[in-house]
């Protein structure tokens, strides 16, 4: 009996540790979204059709989990992707992806300056999508207007930035993405 009580305590302690380590850092103006940061906090958030969607590190058995993924190809392209979930509607999530092509050395320099470099979706070398998942598969909706600002922080080995855009799905449904922000560690291969 004593042993099983001990095991139960250990199980409770582990469950507490695992459940208590989520690290969502709220924004001081809109606490539904994560704070805008430039230090590799591995978090993102946006208002999508006026509802808050977020991604932030959650503890799992194999460490902290987050959805953000950033990769570059020959320093001429940059791809940023993450999943945003509505905490009040657990089944509602979107995948946000940005793909920047034909980047020049000047672009990279500007990404390190001030608040970063702004890329507009009207530019054919800049793509942004918001992807919805359903039983019928994934639907990728392209951003038709708006922008993404990317800041590269070499000291923190992180990419941070803001975004806002409008996209339409094939049925004509509109997705308005406001107050977007992200801050992910970049782990080059």
């Amino acid at each position, binding site marked *: 009996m004593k042993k099983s009580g001990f095991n139960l305590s250990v199980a409770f302690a582990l469950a507490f540790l695992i459940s208590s380590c989520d690290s969502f*850092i*709220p*924004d*001081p*103006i*809109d*606490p*539904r979204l994560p*704070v*805008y*940061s430039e*230090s590799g*906090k591995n978090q993102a958030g946006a*208002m999508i059709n006026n509802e808050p969607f977020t991604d932030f590190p959650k503890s799992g058995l194999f460490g902290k989990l987050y959805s953000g993924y950033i990769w570059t190809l020959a320093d001429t392209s940059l791809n940023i992707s993450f999943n945003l979930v509505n905490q009040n509607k657990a089944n509602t999530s979107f995948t946000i992806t940005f793909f920047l092509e034909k980047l020049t050395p000047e672009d990279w320099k500007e990404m390190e300056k001030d*608040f*970063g470099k*702004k890329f507009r979706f009207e530019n054919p070398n800049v793509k942004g999508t918001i992807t919805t998942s359903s039983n019928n598969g994934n639907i990728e909706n392209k951003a038709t207007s*708006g*922008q*993404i*600002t990317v800041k590269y922080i070499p000291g923190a080995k992180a990419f941070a*930035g*803001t*975004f*806002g*855009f409008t996209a339409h799905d094939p049925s004509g449904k509109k997705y308005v993405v*406001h*107050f*977007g*922000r992200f801050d992910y560690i970049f782990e080059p291969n």
Partner: protein
Amino acid sequence: MRYKFIVVTFFVFFIQIPEGFAQVGMMVGTNYSNVRHDGLLGKTQGQMSLHLGANIEVVPIRGIPNLSLRTDLILVQKGYTPRLDGSRYRVNLDYGSFAPMVKYAIGEDFSIHSGVEFNRLMDSNVGDEITFRKNEKAVFFGVDLFNSKRLSFYTRASFGLTPVLDYYDIDPIEGIQGRISDLYTTTIMLGIQLNIHHEKIRF
């Protein structure tokens, strides 16, 4: 630098006073706080929290026994509560406060006081390390009741003189437009003071 100079000056001033010449008190109470702003936040509500601290009080001029100098060291939680989509989100700002003041006893059981708070941010439940300013200054006015008794009561209204928020001005679509400094605290405190030295002692 100026902040440190003021703090050090007051500490040196009070250290110079022999121990028996000061009236010492412990204080605890509740406070209501909110922020004033330029429309940066939508609807905000105030919030109730607690404070506790200690103080030292001296009468510097023998000929004016009703006039005293007092300094409070307080741990106080300020903050605000934005209301978004019908939900409330509590934003806490925990400060260590150094508050020198002038106090004047109008009667035996009634006195008024006024001074400046130098607040140092110790913790917050929102924001990054650089989201809120580390230092805040505020001016305050208050009254004390039954100050000559072992237990006395006080109330105080404090108004922030410097903004507490240093953050990014984020446009919904266009992203960061620059930086903003805003949010000025307003705090009303109500509490009980235990006077450890009951008598007001002069130099």
